């Protein structure tokens, strides 16, 4: 019974720690554009609990994490936010996604702080998001 009890304990710990990503809101802006407005849009949206925003060259990438039950509408939310960004920054290549891949990768880019990498990685992420299926 020893092993079984440890297993159950392990599972419970996994379950309890599962939903505690404390990223909050992060913004990195290497351009002249005003990033504050975009940040405000993200922070003011009650459905979004975490977001990372990266503005570099002519590209903008936002990775969103929405509240649990808003996940059913996460694509609509991302589209709404994207449309608002497009009005704010005409002429920029904008990618907004609530996909955790975008969130994780953008967060990683920001934490690594290697600016030479930005353009290449951002292009790749935009391409991934556009991929169908």
């Amino acid at each position, binding site marked *: 019974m020893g092993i079984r009890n440890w297993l159950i304990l392990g599972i419970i710990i996994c379950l309890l720690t599962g939903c505690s990503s404390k990223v909050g809101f992060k913004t990195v802006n290497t351009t002249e554009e005003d990033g504050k407005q975009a940040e405000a849009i993200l922070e003011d949206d009650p459905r979004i609990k975490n977001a990372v925003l990266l503005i570099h060259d002519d590209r903008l990438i936002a990775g969103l994490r929405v509240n649990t039950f808003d996940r059913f509408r996460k694509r609509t939310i991302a589209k709404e936010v994207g449309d608002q960004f497009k009005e704010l920054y005409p002429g920029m290549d904008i990618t907004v996604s609530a*996909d955790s*891949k975008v969130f*994780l990768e953008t967060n990683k880019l920001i934490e690594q702080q290697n600016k030479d990498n930005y353009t290449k990685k951002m292009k790749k992420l935009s391409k991934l998001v556009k991929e169908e299926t």
Partner: protein
Amino acid sequence: MDEKKYQQLEQQLTPKPAYLKNCLAAFITGGFVCLIGQFVALFYITFFDFTERTASNPTVATMIFFAMLLTGFGVYKKFAQFAGAGSAVPITGFGNAVVSSAIEHRSEGYVLGVGGNMFKLAGSVILYGVFSAFAVALIKSILVALGVISW
């Protein structure tokens, strides 16, 4: 003794299935299978170029692979006796149905045995899965055309 009376007697003496226990077991084990699936998906998202949307394909393939191994080692059957719907509903149940049929008919050769019988259980899942997807898509298309909802 007539049929009706005997059926009543049979109902009295046959132990009732433990519905509550079965539901609970299915809930826990089904959830556990999905938890493993979530980890696999996370693995593909973190280490490969998959997004949440595209990771579902390799995740499904991996889960079926796990089910295949467990079926081959004879573990899945024992797991299913305890788990019930918890093992049948996730994709692993589909994998188990395919692989168990394939193993069973290995002795009749690869073409008429394995090939011909592999989907004898899972075939209906595929048929009615495709059909219900078609029906749902049809309903949604009509609703979109009528302007009730949008894509």
